[in-house]
């Protein structure tokens, strides 16, 4: 056997039942006829043509053709008559009519009336003399169908095939509202190739029995023996499927959680609504600090929460009013009522404050140490746009140890961000009411070549730790935002897309592969 014959044999082995049905019908040339004879719907037919084209048995050409079709007003006018027809019919018998009267009796809108009159004048069917319309032609002439009417009735017509006269009519009708429109229809045509002709010739002689889908029955009975498996086109696209998956933000959060746990941190959780005391006062944020204004923070209407035990409240009050441990404090009158207001937490640092208060109650001083983390939603009173949202994620961490220092803080953060995929990290001085020293964490984006600001960190001030813990133990703390790193990973540019819950997006978005 020579090589060509092998190819032919191969080709015959790869024909699907659909292709085998169509091949003998190809001589019909018209797609519509093939569809009719083969009893095939257009979708299957198109697919089969695609396959045959891929195998080089036919040469496919897709042709876009434009058709003139009747539009909504056109349909309406075909039933009720064109405005010019309706106006003209008023004049059949009386030959002359006042403009106002004609307008009223024709039932046309101002616009239609103007057009109708214009058309009739142009056709020289009527003329207007001193406020009256006069019929200029015989009744017989006037009752004949207009070319426009004939044209509308004959639609659809292919644009390319219009004659000069029809083209003129079309141009005129096109200027009127919704009478006609153009539809573009793509039509497939084909030519049988030399190879195709050979296959068509060979096909009736090809007697091998092909196996399509292998069935359980064939396996059990062994009926596959002596038959040939049809060759599939393994390169053709399979229809898409979608699996179940976790929300991409939650996948990223789970990863962050894993990093902290690997590094020996214990998870802190807590409510989203918080008493102001924990979110602000315990964190040495003065009661007149701008961040506490309704403009920035969500306050829950009418509710006043419970404060912790008196000892802590008194200590926090003292830190604000007079300071502790040699600090001067903010020097103002601290009000319990303000601290009781309920807010939606503005940072997860309130969870750290609560953790410190719990540790502060431990009898055994040796236990006042540990490493804790949280990842959670936080809120701010913001409008929604591409870079702002009223809900966002923060990842929080504290390290509580007598020997903890600033360099350790840098160490933990560097390690965390390295695992998040940011190898170059920069720490710049910053300010927060509750940490000193304070810093802003920025990471280098290797592709965009920019520094990304991620959020703050620092060592809790003694005015925070002493009232809660009862003594000054260095507490390294951080609470950078998390959304930015997620957006960067998934290459999301608009923050709103993070929580849009677009099912198509969720089905297609990649897994968090870290």
């Amino acid at each position: 056997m020579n090589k060509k014959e092998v190819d032919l044999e191969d080709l015959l082995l790869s024909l699907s039942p659909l292709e085998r049905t169509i091949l003998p019908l190809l001589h019909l040339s018209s797609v519509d006829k093939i569809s009719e004879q083969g009893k095939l719907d257009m979708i299957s037919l198109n697919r089969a043509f695609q396959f045959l084209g891929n195998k080089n048995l036919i040469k496919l050409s897709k042709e876009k053709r434009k058709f003139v079709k009747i539009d909504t007003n056109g349909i309406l006018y075909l039933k009720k008559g064109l405005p010019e027809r309706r106006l003209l019919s008023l004049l059949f018998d009386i030959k002359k009519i006042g403009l106002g009267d004609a307008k009223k009796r024709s039932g046309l809108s101002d616009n239609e009336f103007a057009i109708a009159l214009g058309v009739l004048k142009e056709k020289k069917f009527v003329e207007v003399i001193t406020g009256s319309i006069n019929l200029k032609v015989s009744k017989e002439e006037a009752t004949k169908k207009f070319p426009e009417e004939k044209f509308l009735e004959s639609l659809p017509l292919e644009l390319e095939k219009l004659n000069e006269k029809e083209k003129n009519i079309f141009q005129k009708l096109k200027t009127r509202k919704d009478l006609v429109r153009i539809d573009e229809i793509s039509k497939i045509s084909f030519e049988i190739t030399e190879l195709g002709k050979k296959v068509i010739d060979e096909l009736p002689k090809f007697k091998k029995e092909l196996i399509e889908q292998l069935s359980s029955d064939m396996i059990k009975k062994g009926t596959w023996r002596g038959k040939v498996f049809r060759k599939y086109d393994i390169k053709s696209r399979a229809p898409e499927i979608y699996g179940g998956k976790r929300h991409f933000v939650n996948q990223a959060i789970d990863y962050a959680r894993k990093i902290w746990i690997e590094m020996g941190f214990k998870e802190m959780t807590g409510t989203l609504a918080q008493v102001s005391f924990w979110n602000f006062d315990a964190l040495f944020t003065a009661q007149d600090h701008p961040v506490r204004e309704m403009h920035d923070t969500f306050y829950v209407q009418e509710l006043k929460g419970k404060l912790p035990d008196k000892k802590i409240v008194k200590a926090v009050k003292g830190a604000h009013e007079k300071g502790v441990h040699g600090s001067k404090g903010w020097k103002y009158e601290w009000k319990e009522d303000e601290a009781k207001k309920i807010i939606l937490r503005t940072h997860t640092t309130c969870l750290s404050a609560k953790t410190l208060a719990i540790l502060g109650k431990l009898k055994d001083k040796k236990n006042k140490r540990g490493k804790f983390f949280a990842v959670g939603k936080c809120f701010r009173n913001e409008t929604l746009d591409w870079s702002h949202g009223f809900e966002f994620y923060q990842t929080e961490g504290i390290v509580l140890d007598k020997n903890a220092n600033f360099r350790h803080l840098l160490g933990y953060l560097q390690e965390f961000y390295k695992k998040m995929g940011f190898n170059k990290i920069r720490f710049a001085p910053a300010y927060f009411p509750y940490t000193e020293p304070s810093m802003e964490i920025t990471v280098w984006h290797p592709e965009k070549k920019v520094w990304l600001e991620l959020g703050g960190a620092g060592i809790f001030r003694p005015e925070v730790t002493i009232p809660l813990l009862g003594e000054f133990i260095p507490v390294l703390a951080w609470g950078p935002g998390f959304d930015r790193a997620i957006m960067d990973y998934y290459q999301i540019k608009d923050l709103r897309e993070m929580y849009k819950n677009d099912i198509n997006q969720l089905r297609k978005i990649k897994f968090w592969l870290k």
Partner: protein
Amino acid sequence: MAIVKFSRKEFEKYVKINDKIKEKISMFGTPFESIDKKEIQIEIFPNRPDLLSLQGYIRAFLAFLGKKKGLRQYSIKKPEKNYEVKINKSVRDVRPYTACAIIKKLKFDDERIKEVIDIQEKIHATLGRNRKKIAIGIYPLEKIFLPIKYEARKPEDIKFVPLEGKREMNGLQILQKHPTGKEYGYLLEGKKKFPVFVDVAGNILSMPPIINSEQTGKITKNTKEVFVECSGFDFNILKKTLNIIITMFADMGGEVYQMRLNYGFRKQELTPNLQPEKMKINLNNINKLLGLDLKEKDIKKLLEKMGYDYRNKEVLIPAWRTDILHEVDIIEDIAIAYGYDNFEPELPEISTVGEEDKKEIIKRKISGVLTGLNFIEVSSYHLLTKQDMKKSGHRAGIEIEKSKTDYNFLKPDLLCSALKILSENTDAEYPQKIFEIGKVFEKNDKTETRIEERDKLIITITPGNFTQIKQIFDYLTNMTDTKFEISETIAHNFIEGRTGRIMMEGKQIGILGEIHPSVLRAWHLKMPLACLEIDLEKIIS
């Protein structure tokens, strides 16, 4: 957050700006924002109002660059005759303190006048808490007859032409009619008397913290000498604010004079006073907190870079620094001077055992079961709009005050957000199978916040029916080894006869069934929907 704009030309008289300097600016604790031909923009954090003026910034930044280190010295002249402010007891109930100074030999041009107004406004907005805590007034001395009185008067007895005004008005009229009066009027609300500065000729200079007089309270290009006052409630902070202003004027070339403040209700005092505050610092504390091994001479050097002096184990703090409350504030400045980028990060060996929250573990298991069944997890906001609430039959809820968006209710259940999501996805291919684990909110007086937050799970299948959702429920409970009973119920949003409540230990903890077509229509949903919503708190515990 304050972004200041300095003239690039003025700035570059002292420091030429290049990439290295931009980096230095950020590492000084004042993030560099942007630069063009005319302006450089820098962010100043609220703890450093002394850096808001170009003069203050340059003074500190030059020291940081090692050019003019240590505590900057200024000569302050003693008060001349009549350099006096008499403070009447009547101000005690309304705005009790003022700190004042006189500066001579100044030159003003348009640029400079703008700078002076700018720094006032910046301090008002930040440290001054919108003039509540601090209001600053600067007046041309040539129009004033010394000494000055600071007193409180009945509003109708206060009569002067306010700044940018044409007619004389009384105190009340200013609050009601003048634009600045309307803006800041609330600061004097409910007060029987309003504070005023009056000169010996009886001219009213200003009514703090609202407005100056058009005649005596406006600096022009002809002004050479000024009277400065800061009024408010905390004498200490006022004195420091005054120091920020007068050192700025001194750096402009002005000659600063003290004034005698005769308080009727406390001891006489001279302001301004640039006597530095002293604070002891402990070398060991510094090294321990920063993880460094600095010697005393290093500390001295670093402190001088931040504009301090260091003598006899004591730090001399510039009298214009408002932010030094504790040793740690100085330690931060030492760290900044050392350079945050010069610290070697270290991962210490503190042995602790990591631990994930139990709830999270269970939530992840449940998610695993559901994603295995081809469900997609969604993640919705915790806030809903009033419209969303209404469509799911919630008439009342926990409301947020003054939300900037329409989202102002804490969500009472997960069904509402699930329906919302599905209604926004009618163009996505069906079937749609989604789930969410999230928090729902309910008022409860017994909790700390008076709000109870519970973790719930919602599962929806559309198109879906009771059998399908029941299958999911059975599989989920089997896989998580939990036991429930289901009993018939009637529930809002659900079709009667196809709704079950999920019971555990005699208590309802969830619901499952088919959603009523009237609800689906309200959300413009055209496919049948089966759903399950269950409280996870019980399961988790």
